[in-house]
């Protein structure tokens, strides 16, 4: 038996969210809503499961292949389930000058995994400039921004992970 993609409540959120999104696009350009639609799906499921991509494609009047093409182009979309906490550490020049390499090394040690790898709890990635160069080093945890990091701040952040 197929597992349902959404609970009834999720399905309702998906449906009404999609109606709102599509109200901002020309009626004959539904497929343009791909990014907001995928974001909506990911907000409900935590990632973009194949059945979800199919449903998005169908609702936007486009193909599964088109949905996959978009989903795999952008680094914030996950076509595989990521860890519970996705940590994106900026290691671009400005942040590196202010210690981003130390942040990354500390996280690798504290979380017990290498940058670029993942387990059920954590996905640890080096990311590119987060437009927070004056308040580096910085990182994002599940899209929440943390800046002007110090070892104490990093410890406090890691302590919040369950």
């Amino acid at each position: 038996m197929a597992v349902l993609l959404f609970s009834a409540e999720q399905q309702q959120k998906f449906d009404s969210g999609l109606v709102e999104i599509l109200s901002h696009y020309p009626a004959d350009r539904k497929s343009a809503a791909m990014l907001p639609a995928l974001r909506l799906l990911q907000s409900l499921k935590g990632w973009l499961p194949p059945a979800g991509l199919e449903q998005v494609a169908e609702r936007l009047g486009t193909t599964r292949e088109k949905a996959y093409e978009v989903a795999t182009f952008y680094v914030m979309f996950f076509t595989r389930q990521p860890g519970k906490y996705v940590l994106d550490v900026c290691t671009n020049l400005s942040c590196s000058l202010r210690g981003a390499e130390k942040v990354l090394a500390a996280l690798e040690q504290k979380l017990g995994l290498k940058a670029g790898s993942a387990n059920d709890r954590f996905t640890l990635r080096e990311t590119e400039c987060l437009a927070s160069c004056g308040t580096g080093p910085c990182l994002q945890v599940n899209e929440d921004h943390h800046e002007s990091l110090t070892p104490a701040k990093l410890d406090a952040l890691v302590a919040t992970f369950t």
Partner: protein
Amino acid sequence: MIEVEKVITKNWGRPGSNTLDGYRSTGGYRALEKALAQAPAQVTEEVKRSNLRGRGGAGFPTGMKWGFVPKDNPKPVYLAVNADESEPGTFKDRYILENDPHLLLEGIAITCYALNCHQAYIYSRGEFKGPSATLDRAIAEAYAAGIFGKQLMGKPFALDVYQVRGAGAYICGEETALLESLEGKKGWPRLKPPFPAVVGLFGAPTVVNNVETLANVPAILDRGAAWYAGLGTEKSGGTRLICLSGSVNRPGVYECSMKTTLKELIFEPTLGGGMPPGRQVKAVIPGGSSAPVLSADELDVAMEFEALKAKNTMAGSGGVIVMDDATCLVRSLWRVARFYAEESCGQCTPCREGTPWQTRILRKIEEGRGEAGDLELLLHVASTIAPFPPIGLGNTICALGDAAALPVHSFVSKFKLEFQSHIAQRKCPFGDAPWGHFGGFA
């Protein structure tokens, strides 16, 4: 140092500056009223006379861009607001969205009126969760107050303003890639011409303007083009937001006169506040990481389009990154090169293949495995993507190729000895310990 009246940052730090009430308490939306009392063509004319130039990187005259929209076209006109701020070293648009979102929204409203545009899309970068939420609240306030919606502040002019969040792709800051992404596709830049003003979003005329650019529009309508033009230089009106980062005591966003020099920016106590103790400037990137680097003896230059162009570099997006004398420039350039390799969209061969090669060669040199001929090879690869000088010779559809090659050309030519000593010593003379001799992790 030249003091200048604040245009963009005047409300920053004021309580409630990101709310409609706060914005209105300092005269907000007065400029829109003034604009609506004029004919749309007059508004465009005013912006042309103001000498406002695009703040996203290219510095193109804004009024002229608006003027490219065909007059008698049967299709709708779109405004695409570029809030996909991703150029390394640049973080001004984030501050505008967080501190004064209605300034942008008023600029959008005036611009849409001038262009007879009824649909504006704000494309903000996916990583801007906080700023995007602030902006969405401001949009909702503007709807509730009758500023947007079926009427534009009481005038029969429908305007929908909608924020679309990106999902992590630097390339979508390139205007045609942004349009592709707004159309729900991967961000592959389009060949130009046709330019977006003629064939843009959904095949219709589209103006693409940066956040800071549009945030300047209300002041132009409120105070007049002559006043605005007078703030700047002969060819470039207004002030500039400068984003200062790297090896400097007071990193941050500063609203500066176009005549402020890089040296003043770094050393003035009210601006950068000088270098960390015991450190000297070695190199400065003046306009986002794409801009060719300057050496310490080239800092007596005004941070505006023409002056930096004369130095074979660019004002770009206003991102100034300072590197000090304890900073390895091979590693610095490797960091920059890696970014472009990561963010190349993969459409054009020279960029897709060349950017990882640049990165690999630089890493090899930094790790002490460099050999004779590596620098020549590196420069050859960079030239294959985009020869230099001058700026703009790239062999790719969009300017990402140029952006990836320019730092390589400029770092290697200006600091050749440092690159050569890495190869000769077969190690990095600065050591391989993690960076960060100042800042929170020092």
